[in-house]
């Protein structure tokens, strides 16, 4: 009995190994798993999508775009389900399906890891044929690039467009007694403040350096926990996107001190919450610093994606933002549309890189050991 056991085990291992590797290899050859799908809740994909745009334009050879798209397109969300990026992706996916030609599906997949880098790295390495894209933000990519935490040249990604831009807000607990950023700067003279983060990002490092406030990082398991610690009074100050802190400010638990980026126009969600709060540019006197640090959500594809493919995708995104139903959904979810086309999106990525390049030493010092 023991002999048979001993002999069976290696065979079992080898068979299992071979089988699963074959399975995995076959699955990834498709250029994307189809175990996750979105069910289109609205109109089915129409073959006659008028705004889906030109099939060929300038530089790329005619062959590159023949009949694109011919298979399903995968939209990678480099974060866990339920977050802001995930929600944006799942909300826009059915509309991209509608406005892309040939009735292909847009399949949303979560590939979380390394603070959003794993999913984008995978898209970076995928074939530049326009069948894989990711939703991400320039800040995260540029920070990693400058600090050298990964080897991937994220600045070479093809940007398909921007979905929205939202400012970040520096907030403190309402019962901290601090009303303005000057109060905080004064208090910081006694020693570094405790900053609650869900990880460390460029916005924390650069904005606080510009404000001249020393801080110690208390890392949490996500933004929710970080904000709870502020409300509890265990930490002093934090920076988070407007959409994350809005509810808590309205409820009177948090006080906004500085807006990093451009405040929403009057009437848009969140505008009244930060009415009267100065912007980072105003407080520090550095023009454009805010817009390099605020949160842009962009769609990207692999480097070297043919320009005709980019045009088709760009057109589909633009058409989605022209769809009244989509805009209503966004409004109900409290999300502000902020569409910018592929060229503008590319410019945003480049601007973020050049703006943060000046802080390269600071970023490297803080982010690497």
């Amino acid at each position, binding site marked *: 009995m023991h002999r048979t056991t001993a002999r069976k085990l290696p065979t079992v291992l080898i068979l299992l190994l071979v089988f699963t590797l074959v399975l995995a290899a076959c699955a990834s050859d498709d250029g994307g798993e189809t*175990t996750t799908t979105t069910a289109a809740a609205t109109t089915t994909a129409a073959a006659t999508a008028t705004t889906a745009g030109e099939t060929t334009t300038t530089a790329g050879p005619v062959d590159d775009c023949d009949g694109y798209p011919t298979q399903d397109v995968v939209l990678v969300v480099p974060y866990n389900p339920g977050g802001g990026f995930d929600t944006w992706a799942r909300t826009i996916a059915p509309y991209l399906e509608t406005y892309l030609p040939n009735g292909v599906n847009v399949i949303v997949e979560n590939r979380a890891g390394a603070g959003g880098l794993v999913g984008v*790295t995978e898209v970076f390495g995928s074939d530049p044929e326009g069948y894989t894209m990711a939703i991400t933000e320039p800040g995260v990519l540029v920070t990693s690039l400058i600090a050298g935490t990964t080897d991937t040249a994220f600045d070479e990604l093809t940007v398909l467009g921007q979905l929205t831009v939202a400012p970040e807000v520096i907030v403190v607990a309402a019962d901290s007694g601090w009303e303005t950023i000057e109060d905080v700067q004064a208090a910081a003279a006694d020693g570094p403040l405790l900053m609650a983060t869900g990880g460390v990002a460029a916005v924390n490092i650069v904005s606080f350096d510009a404000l001249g406030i020393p801080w110690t990082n208390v890392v949490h398991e996500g933004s929710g926990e970080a904000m709870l610690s502020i409300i509890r009074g265990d930490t002093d100050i934090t920076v988070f996107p407007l959409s994350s802190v809005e509810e808590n400010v309205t409820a009177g638990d948090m006080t906004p001190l500085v807006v990093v980026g451009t405040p929403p126009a009057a009437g848009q969600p969140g505008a009244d919450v930060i009415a009267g709060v100065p912007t980072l540019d105003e407080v520090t006197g550095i023009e454009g610093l805010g817009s390099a640090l605020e949160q842009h959500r962009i769609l990207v594809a692999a480097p070297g994606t043919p320009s005709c493919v980019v045009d088709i995708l760009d057109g589909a995104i633009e058409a989605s933002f022209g769809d009244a139903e989509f805009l209503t959904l966004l409004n109900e979810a409290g999300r502000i549309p902020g569409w910018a086309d592929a060229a503008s999106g590319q410019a945003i990525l480049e601007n973020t890189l050049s703006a943060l390049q000046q802080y390269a030493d600071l970023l490297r010092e803080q982010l*690497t050991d």
Partner: protein
Amino acid sequence: MIDGLAGAFTDLMTWPSPLYLMLGVVLGLVVGILPGIGGGGAMALLIPFTFGMSPAHGIAFLMAVGASSGIGGQITSILVSIPGDPPNAATVIDGYAMTKQGKAAEALGAATWGSMFGAVFGMALFLIVLPLARNLVLAFSYPDFFMIAVAGLVVISSLTGGKVHKGLAAAGVGLLVSFVGLDPVSGNPRFAFGTLYLWDGIPLVPALVGLFAGSEMLALFSVRGSQSLAETDPDAPVSRMIDGLYSTLRAWKTVIVSSFIGFFAGLVPGISGTLAAFVAYGQAKRMSKNPDQFGHGAVEGVIAPETANDADKGGGLLPTLAFGIPGGVIMAVLLSGLILHGVPAGPNLLRGDLHIVYVLVVAALLPRFVAGGIVLAVGTRATVLTRMRGDVLAPIITVIALIGVYALRNEPIDVLLALVFSYVGYGMEAHGFSRLTFIIAMVLGSLIESSYHQTLQTFGLRGFVTRPIALILLFVTVATLAGPPILKRIRRRRLVEVGGDRK
């Protein structure tokens, strides 16, 4: 409050809500049975599907999926030792042991009834403390999380029995594995060997599936051979689902204690369900009249974790609704579902119309009863699996398990990890190292480390002894560790005295 609940109930019972509820239950059960993708992931996938529904229907549907996935996970944990989700890990130990003894139906029944009782108690506690929700959530801070995690580690001590060094070794390696990934203080990668994939550490589900399911399948295939999974004595009475109900009723103290543990564990960020299951398991063993049975098919070892990991949903709703800050993946998805339907889930929710809160509570309970009913009705059929030939069953289950592991992150490395852990698990069992100890340490390692450093950064060392909750837990932990040896000494002295008198 009763009016509110009744109103919500009638809301959810008006057509077409029951249809969505049933659909959600069926989907949730299927998702729970398939290893890898959990309730939270499935809920996220289904959110766009709910765009066309009214808020109440959409939320009911999503909650139904989330609630039933837990019950689906129990089925595979007990019958084939595949934990559907990390919270099911503790159930696998005694559940699968009971299956091997031919008592699968009883285990399944006990787990289902335990889940239902736990869910009811959890929601009842939630409603009772609702007015104090804010204060309760704010009362828990880093030292308290640390102490809760340490209490969980103390469970290990009660599981090692006489072989302390083996238990410590397993725990130590578990902690070591948990330290792979980003350093919680500086955010720099540790033991990542330069790859992005290890930045978040060794993923829990592949390790879990490999350690428990994979190793059991290896054992089934190589040791049992053509025998079936269950070794039943043909003369013994056939176990039934109703036996599970009797067992659960008999273990009423365990049910209540596990519900409380689950509810409070729900307030701990991230790992609430898993933590709840382990701590409840350990507590049940300490409270049990036959603790040696644990690990070898004690039905309380199935009831305790399943009750706790359903009660934790009640606790998890508190930060979600009081602050709009989710206490876990299921809550996070629920929150975005709520927001997408225009329900302002945030600090203002509890101050305004409580109707949606009642809908949530009823929507959390109703599907569990339906799912539980389905399992109780047809579960006995599923136990026929356990009478199939082991060497046919094992490869089938292994493949399904590995596919589920792959589906989690679309990562071939995960599958490799699961295979490696299968062999590790097999070896551990063969040499008497507790896999449960290893997993507990692996799950709790990062929470212990991060909450320890967070405490030092904010409160300093005094933080551990100046906060009431942390102090109570510290006392309980010390008592648990020091209690049994001291009691033994007292008993021995008494025996000596008595013996001396007799002489």
